[in-house]
């Protein structure tokens, strides 16, 4: 789909960038020391820090990814909301206060607090870098993907703008400006999501036969199978013959007319010897990248066609055609008893190497939309196979354990003055993040029924929902979506620069640096990491990289959480135990995801069956493995540590 550019969106976005950069320069005057750069002098008010948690944590994956997944599949996207929020319970009850008490600037500080070991600083620094870079890549690619529809600039421009702005934010005032950017972004995101959700409810639901472009999707049938097999034309139009990959059992194509290469595809569904044909959309891609929609060149000019916007209710309860404003609970009651047209897709391979993707309608009962198991990732829970069940539990476990082990989240505990402030800011964080996640279900279902969905790109669901409500809101939400990337990337770059300067150079290599020198090195490291992130963001443009966030969660949960928890609760934990646990957790989870079926399909293009890992989500194996490693190694090395033990 090609989107129009909104001048208002451009203005709002650049106004936001100007404010944040201006703020950074203003605050930069007071952040020259290492305390200022890494931890904002520990003087951020807890309420501000709490909202900044939301700004740090609610990445593009949360806002765009979850809304998009709910818009395309229903409840399943909400499972991520639930898991991502649950992780904060670990952060509040187990990690928050000790983290503040034990550490100073980085995650490694806390892990190393009782040992003063170069080995711990090394492994914790590396694990911070690995997790942060995996988290960075999808954010940068997301920035590039967003800028095209939102501001009309090419992919690389989005990546470079985000990279440059973030480098300015981080280099001028480190944690001080990063915190305020995240605070601004977090509050705007929650407020405007609430506005969107209220507008979705007050608009209510309406039965339509197509998207907002007014196109009416045709349906033929049901007709007896024998009659369908003998069919040569329909509606006064000729049926194009099978061949070149097309099979009548899946799709038929009605020719537009003798003077046009265009056609309309119909998906064939057969039930009890009765055949129903539902209008579909098709997109053909040649090897050289040229694209056709329904047989004619893609574009908005004469003789060209675009994919149509989708997302509509096909049936409301009691045969109603329009509900009017709905209450927050009533909304679900109505959806539960409605039928909504979701879209599936299927590839058709042609002889010349080109490929057509046919997008077809899937009228789906509301009762199915509001239960887990429609998305391919979660469909396994209905398969009854043990492997699929373990996969699901493993994913939910990684989400639960991952949050409280993400380095860019953990360093936020050093920006407040004491443990009580750490606790209070986590509670504010949970309240704002939880509230946002409640809204995701309304936004997602609102987008699902908005008539403006982009069939190719579910990530655009939230901005497109806004467009269906008001052009101004579209501009604002678009700008927020882009700044969402800014907030999260700032936190990641800061965490990485701390790991390089504070953990690896000063801590591990033992280079003697005073505070000012350390800040200078950290700023330099931030520029290097920023430059690397820009390059990776451009290199990975064509790849679907959203799953990298999942990797980051699994690796963080396996590498960081076990050692942190055991350090707090098991007094026989040794230095060697922590080093071994971080190393084993990190390498085993990384190796597992690299050898999993998911990665085989998405990255190497190999069949999932040939994967070595028995299932895709490593958490359920690698998290306990890291715990066991720590216990075994600690018990084995106990003696050598005895003199230091209290």
């Amino acid at each position, binding site marked *: 789909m090609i989107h129009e550019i909104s001048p208002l969106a451009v203005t709002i976005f650049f106004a936001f960038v100007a404010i944040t950069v201006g703020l950074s320069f203003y605050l930069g005057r007071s952040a020259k020391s290492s305390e200022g750069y890494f931890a904002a002098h520990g003087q951020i008010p807890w309420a501000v820090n709490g909202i900044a948690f939301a700004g740090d944590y609610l990445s593009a994956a949360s806002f765009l990814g979850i809304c998009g997944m709910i818009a395309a599949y229903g409840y399943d996207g909400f499972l991520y*909301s639930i898991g991502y929020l649950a992780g904060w319970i670990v952060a509040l009850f187990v990690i928050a206060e000790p983290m503040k008490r034990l550490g100073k600037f980085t995650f490694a500080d806390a892990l190393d607090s*009782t040992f003063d070991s170069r080995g711990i600083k090394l492994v914790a620094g590396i694990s911070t870098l690995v997790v942060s870079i995996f988290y960075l890549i999808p954010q940068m690619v997301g920035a590039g993907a967003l800028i095209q529809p939102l501001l009309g600039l090419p992919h690389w421009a989005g990546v470079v703008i985000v990279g440059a702005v973030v480098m300015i934010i981080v280099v001028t005032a480190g944690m001080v400006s990063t915190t305020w950017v995240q605070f601004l972004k977090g509050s705007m995101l929650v407020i405007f999501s609430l506005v969107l959700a209220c507008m979705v409810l007050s608009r209510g639901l309406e039965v339509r036969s197509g998207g907002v472009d007014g196109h009416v999707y045709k349906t033929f049938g049901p007709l007896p199978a024998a009659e369908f097999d003998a069919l040569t034309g329909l509606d006064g139009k000729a049926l194009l013959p099978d061949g070149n990959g097309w099979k009548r059992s899946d799709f038929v194509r009605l020719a537009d007319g003798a003077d046009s290469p265009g056609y309309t595809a119909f998906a064939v569904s057969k039930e009890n010897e009765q055949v129903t044909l539902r209008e579909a959309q098709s997109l053909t891609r040649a090897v050289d990248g040229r694209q056709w929609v329904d047989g004619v060149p893609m574009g908005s000019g004469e003789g060209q066609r675009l994919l149509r916007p989708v997302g509509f209710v096909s049936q409301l309860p009691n045969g109603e055609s329009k509900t009017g404003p709905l209450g927050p609970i009533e909304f679900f009651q109505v959806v539960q008893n409605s039928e909504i047209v979701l879209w599936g897709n299927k590839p058709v391979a042609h002889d010349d190497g080109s490929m057509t993707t046919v997008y077809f309608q899937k009228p789906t009962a509301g009762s199915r939309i509001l239960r887990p198991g429609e998305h391919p990732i979660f469909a396994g829970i209905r398969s009854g196979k043990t492997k699929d069940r373990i996969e699901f539990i493993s994913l939910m476990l990684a989400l639960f354990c991952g949050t409280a082990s993400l380095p860019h989240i953990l360093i936020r505990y050093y920006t407040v003055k004491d443990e009580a402030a750490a*606790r209070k800011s986590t509670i504010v964080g949970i309240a704002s993040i939880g509230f946002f996640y409640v809204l995701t279900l309304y936004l997602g279902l609102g987008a699902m029924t908005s008539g403006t969905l982009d069939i190719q790109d579910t990530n655009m669901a939230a901005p497109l929902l806004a467009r269906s409500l008001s052009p101004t809101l579209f501009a604002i939400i678009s700008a927020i979506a882009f700044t969402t990337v800014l907030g999260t990337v700032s936190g990641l770059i800061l965490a990485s620069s701390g790991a390089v300067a504070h953990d690896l150079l000063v801590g591990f290599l033992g280079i003697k640096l005073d505070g000012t020198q350390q800040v200078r090195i950290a700023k330099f490291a931030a520029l290097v990491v920023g430059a690397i992130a820009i390059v990776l963001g451009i290199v990975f443009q064509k790849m679907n990289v959203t799953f990298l966030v999942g990797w980051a969660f699994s690796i963080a949960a396996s590498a960081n959480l076990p050692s942190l928890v055991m350090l707090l609760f098991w007094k026989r934990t040794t230095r060697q135990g922590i080093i071994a646990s971080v190393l084993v957790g990190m390498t085993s989870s990384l190796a597992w995801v690299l050898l999993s079926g998911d990665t085989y399909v998405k990255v190497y293009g190999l069949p999932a069956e040939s994967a070595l890992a028995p299932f895709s989500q490593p958490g359920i194996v690698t998290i306990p493995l890291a715990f066991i490693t720590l216990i075994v190694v600690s018990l084995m090395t106990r003696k050598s540590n005895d003199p230091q033990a209290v």
Partner: protein
Amino acid sequence: MSEQLTSHLFHRSRKSKIGMNSPSPSHSIAAARAHNSRLGLWLFAIYLVVYFGFVLANAFVPAVMEWQPFGGINLALLYGFGLIVAALLLAFIYGLFAKSGQDSDSDAQQVSR
């Protein structure tokens, strides 16, 4: 069990403070930490049970999620929203009953600097 864990935490925190060449924390701070840690672990245990109840129900009896106990709202929604509300509720309970054990601008601040 939790008594034991608390005492570990208590020891560890004392030790780390000493390691940083600072005066040992006053009794009230140590007591507050022990109290918070115990309270936190209890609340954590409650949430753990509720969360993994949800996960296991989805994994082993997904059909139960379609059950509509009342008001035409299915269990998937009730439980899902319930988990978010429970997180908020437990967080507020913790905030309400956790102790600071010090004046808000005490020397704990300078200790870590």
